[in-house]
């Protein structure tokens, strides 16, 4: 191979290249063939604070689903082995390290690992940084968990899809639920992490409250640093404010620490607490979280998922395999993989053979498929962004099951909590959510 020889000669002369395997660097991407396994990059947090609540559960769910899909063991309509006949071969990498790092790693996945598609990303920052590169490299990329609505509201992409609903619906549903169960709420306080997720969640929540219940008064808004862990002063400020309700989008260890400290100081007795991303913490908090806290799961996931054959199968298999209750990140990972399978197979049927990326994209746009948490429609963002219904519930410790469950579940239609296609969620909320279809 003349090319490789020339290449390694040059690399060899570069002192620093000694550590590199020159052939690995110079090998151009292999021509894709339709018979071997389908290589899938899966990017999720394996280290850092997001690994425990989201990253590792999502990886577990992905591994379990890939195994089941390859074996054809997922209930109908997914009961054919592989994806359009090809086995999935996952390449799992860590999402830690920031957006710059992830952009480089995305290139590596595509060009060095030769993956056919990438599924992943929990951090909104990564979900904003990666899509332009996905377009450049023309690789199908499916975002499974990140929340920011900006991905498809500020740009439009051909190769990028998001199978999970965006974060606006978390807070729209939470506000509606709060008003349904506490119609005379007057004062609201917030404690959210000081980064885009926390700031956006609080802004959405307060905007919705102002639209639906204009007399709402905001008493205090706390923005502790992410991973602060100590909320003494913030909890005091919330207690001093004496608010009827406290909104929080904290997650992971921050949320768990906030609950421990807040319960110990009586915050949960004095205010109705709303935790929009609280579901992953419930199995771990157990009796530490009091009954009656309003909790969301960023979609109808986990305990909020409506019963179905697929849901029962997913839960049982996950618990049997890992011994853990599947939390929302696992549902979203499974949803992404099933969405991918559905899109590829719809495209394969139309094409009469294994589809090209363009054919998969055509099939994926406006696709309707079913995940363990019910129907999902790729309805907005020009058919690239999923919507689904949302559900919110209240905590209740179940003595028989020995764990916290969610009761008083209210479901909100997908068009009750999501903006119509082409409308930015912030604008939609501010203009009074016109056209929202709620029963």
């Amino acid at each position: 191979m003349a090319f490789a020889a020339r290449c390694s000669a040059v690399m060899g002369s570069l002192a620093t290249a000694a550590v590199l395997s020159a052939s690995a660097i110079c090998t151009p991407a292999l021509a894709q063939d339709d018979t071997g396994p389908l290589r899938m990059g899966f990017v999720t947090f394996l280290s850092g604070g997001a690994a425990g609540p989201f990253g590792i559960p999502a990886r577990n769910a992905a591994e379990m689903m890939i195994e089941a899909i390859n074996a054809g063991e997922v209930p109908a309509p997914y009961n054919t082995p592989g994806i359009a006949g090809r086995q999935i071969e996952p390449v799992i990498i860590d999402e830690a390290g920031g957006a710059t790092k992830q952009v480089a790693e995305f290139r590596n996945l595509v060009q060095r690992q030769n993956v056919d598609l990438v599924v992943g990303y929990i951090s909104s920052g990564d979900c904003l940084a990666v899509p332009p590169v996905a377009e450049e490299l023309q690789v199908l990329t499916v975002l499974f968990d990140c929340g920011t609505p900006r991905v498809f509201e500020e740009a439009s992409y051909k190769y990028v899809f998001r199978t999970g609903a965006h974060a606006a619906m978390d807070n729209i549903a939470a506000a509606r639920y709060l008003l349904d169960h506490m119609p005379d709420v007057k004062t609201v306080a917030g404690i959210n992490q000081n980064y885009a997720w926390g700031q956006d969640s609080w802004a959405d929540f307060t905007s919705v409250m102002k639209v639906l219940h204009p007399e709402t008064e905001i008493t205090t808004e706390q923005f502790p640093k992410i991973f602060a862990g100590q909320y003494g002063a913030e909890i005091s400020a919330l207690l001093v404010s004496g608010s009827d309700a406290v909104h929080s989008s904290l997650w992971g260890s921050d949320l768990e620490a906030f609950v421990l400290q807040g319960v110990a100081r009586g915050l949960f007795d004095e205010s109705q607490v709303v935790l929009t991303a609280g579901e992953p913490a419930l199995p771990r908090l157990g009796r530490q979280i009091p009954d009656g806290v309003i909790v969301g799961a960023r979609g109808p996931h986990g305990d909020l998922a409506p019963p179905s054959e697929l849901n029962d199968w997913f839960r049982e298999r996950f618990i049997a395999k890992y011994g853990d209750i599947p939390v929302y990140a696992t549902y979203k990972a499974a949803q992404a993989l099933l969405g991918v399978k559905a899109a590829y197979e719809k495209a394969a049927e139309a094409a009469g053979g294994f589809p090209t990326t363009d054919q998969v994209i055509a099939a994926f746009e406006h696709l309707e498929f079913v995940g363990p948490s019910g129907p999902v429609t790729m309805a907005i963002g020009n058919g690239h962004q999923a919507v689904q219904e949302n559900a919110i519930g209240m905590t209740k410790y179940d003595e028989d099951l020995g764990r916290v469950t969610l009761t008083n579940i209210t479901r909100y239609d997908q068009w009750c909590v999501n903006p119509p296609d082409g409308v930015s969620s912030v604008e939609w909320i501010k203009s009074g959510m016109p056209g929202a279809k709620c029963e």
Partner: protein
Amino acid sequence: MIDRTVWGLFAALLVVLGAGFIAADWAQFLLVLALAKGMVVLGLLVLMRAGLVSFGQGLWYGLGCYAAGMAGNFLGVTDAFLLLALGIAASTTVAFILGFLLSRYREIFFALLNMAFSMILFGVLVKTSVLGSTDGFNVLTPTFLGYAPSEAALGDTVFLLTAVISFVVAVLIHWYLGSTMGFIGEAIRENELRVEYLGVSARRAVHIKLMIAAALSGIGGVLTAIAVGHVDPEMTYWTTSGEFVFVAILSGTGSVAAPFMGSIIFEVLRTYAYEYSPYTWQMLMGAVMLLVIIFLPGGLWSALSRSRKGEGK
């Protein structure tokens, strides 16, 4: 003054260009990032020659990144050279102002005060929702003096620009370090009081070095922003600054080429550590760092020059 080092750098440029153009895209991209960050590390080298280490280079780097991103998104500027000018202007102006304070400090205090300032910038960026808070925002596709490369040619163009700028900057800094002002740095490291007795203001010299380091970091920031297409506050966080210092120690201060070499090795090492041990890559990087510190006090460059000297004997 065209000496052996300049010829060496020129040869290195040709090798890098050759390697970059035949390498796979991901390797070329890695090279761009490494060179861009190498410039920040070169700035650290200028400071370290004067005995100063900063744990806040992310401040200047981040200013460059954000200047490039904001100029595109708010002013509609996409020309890479104009962005570079803006990035340098932003970082040097701030360095000029903060320099009056920073140039009074030495040793660990200098390192930590720099860090404090970078953390303040981090705090401000995280709070600024117009700039996307922690999520940051995407940078417009650059143009080059009116030339708007196709998507396929963009990578090559950015790479060419980065490699040439790295070369020019390295030569300039080489000349600077060889000048009287450059050598004053080493005099300051050895004995500041004596420098003052010689009638030179150590503070002014440090102030200028700070601005040079800031300008270099600004260039690195702009090039990173252009190459990655996205900026976020992580670029100003102390761990980013720590990474620069890590690369500087890894490289050693023996030559202006060292930071670039060290930076390339670091990026390669990290990307393979990521791939082959996704669960313990931090441990691997830490171990490498310890080994270098213990066994190669002068950095990798010292190993290289030592072996070269050995050959001569």
